[in-house]
């Protein structure tokens, strides 16, 4: 089942070979509850992607420790699913082959993965496109496929790095709703990175507000909206107030 994420005193400094070392993220403490949907918002260079890559085990922290379910992260975990900004589907594999790739590489049961794949493909309406190649799909469909790929290994933690930022507004909203449905079906801890405040508010239980130069976590805002959330929430005044509240936390744009 879902496991919590503990980020303790984690910072990241990139030491350039020629330039001064760059502090990408100042020491940060953050705890994600098991099954929580947590978003990080902030401008470019605030270290949000750096933090996600460290939680993914793709990047070692300069200081501090990251634990998932109490276990220290030193390398990528197969129980962690990742969705990148670009769908990153391999163009020589069909959609279905792409989706089953993590199970194949991880040496997991393909029977169970296939069953889950068909189930999720059906939910996101990709069943008919499963045997096509990524290049034959629209951007929205590609990103759906990449979300399904992250879900078929039934991960305990799902990391999403600006997954909808390359999509148009309509597709983006549709995918947000699909994402919520998928998350509700099998709860898992989600760390979601975005620079879109409304998106963060709509999806999350809590939103972490970050700022740049140097990258830091400034505030954590609770989102007082019930679940399940439906699209009409987006036009309610309470929602606007929440979004405005987060915006004030960000302060003047640099």
């Amino acid at each position, binding site marked *: 089942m879902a496991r919590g994420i503990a980020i303790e005193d984690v910072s990241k400094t990139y030491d350039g070979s020629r330039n001064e070392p760059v502090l990408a993220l100042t020491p940060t403490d953050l705890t994600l509850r098991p099954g929580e949907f947590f978003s990080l918002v902030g401008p470019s260079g605030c270290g949000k992607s750096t933090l996600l890559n460290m939680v*993914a085990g793709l990047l070692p922290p300069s200081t501090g420790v990251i634990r998932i379910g109490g276990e220290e992260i030193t390398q990528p975990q197969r129980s*962690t699913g990742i969705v990148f900004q*670009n769908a*990153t589907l*391999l*163009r020589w594999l069909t959609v279905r082959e792409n989706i089953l*790739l993590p199970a194949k*590489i*991880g040496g997991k049961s393909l029977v169970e993965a296939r069953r889950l794949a068909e189930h999720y493909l059906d939910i996101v309406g990709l069943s008919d496109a499963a045997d096509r190649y990524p290049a034959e799909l629209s951007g929205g469909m590609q990103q759906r496929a990449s979300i399904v790929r992250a879900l078929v290994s039934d991960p305990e933690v799902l990391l999403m790095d600006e997954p909808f930022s390359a999509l148009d507004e309509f597709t983006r909203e549709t995918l947000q709703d699909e994402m919520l449905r998928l998350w509700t079906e099998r709860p898992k801890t989600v760390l979601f990175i975005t620079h879109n405040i409304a998106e963060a508010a709509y999806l999350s239980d809590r939103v972490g507000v970050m700022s740049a130069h140097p990258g830091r976590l400034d505030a954590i805002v609770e989102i007082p909206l019930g679940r399940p959330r439906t699209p009409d929430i987006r036009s309610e005044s309470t929602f606007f107030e929440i979004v405005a509240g987060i915006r004030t936390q960000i302060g003047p744009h640099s």
Partner: protein
Amino acid sequence: MTSAPSDIGAAEAAAMDTPPAQPARRRSPRGAGRATARAILLPLLVLIIILAGWFAVTAAGAVSPLLVPAPPQVWDALVRGVFGGLWWEHIFTTLYEMVAGFFLGAIIGLVTGALFAFVGTLYQAFYPFVIALQSFPKIAIAPLLVVALGYGPEPKIVVATLLAFFPIMTASIAGFTNVNPDEHKLLRSYRASVWQELRYLRIPNAMSYVFPSFDVAVVLALLGAVAAELVGAQSGLGYLLIERQQFGDSASMYAVLILLAILGVSLRSLTQGLRKVLPRSIVPR
């Protein structure tokens, strides 16, 4: 003899038909059809002009027939050589040398490309020599190869291989090295082994670079085979050129050149067509 002028006559008649056809197409609402028609008709028109010019020059006796033989003579030589069966042996010799050179070049190019991509020391030690080899006119070693390997197909295969190898090797290096960083990160997040990374990422990625390089390599292999035949051979289209030259048979030389042009274009179309027909799992695009 009579067939040639009547053929050309038919082509000219077709050309006379085209002007009335064009306005009719212009009225058609579909621009795509018109564009296709233009793409076919314009090159055809140029071909007809070239043929007509060739006819005119030879008919006027402006140049020696030894230099520019008349089209009907060339056509006859071509028909005699191809349909008379005299040239098939030579065509097969050249094709054999070229195909062997191409496949050897492809295998060596792929393997050395992969080695250079993965073993930095090898790259640093040997790549300067590979570049030097590339700048060097490889046909120049053909006489030496004939001395070493004789008048048979072997020296031609070596030259064809040397020429075909280079574009495939550079494509192979690029394909194994230029991996999308996101895709690499994805495989890393799955904790893929080196072999799995090769199997699922680097080899398929390399194929999308390597297949287009075959278009160039196949033409270079033909060039290498024919050029080496010119140096010393017992058979092959290059040999045929030299032999006909000694007989002062310019018409046959022209016919062989036309045959070589057809061969080159067909082989290139073959690799290009193959790339379109093969599934994306083999040729990613």
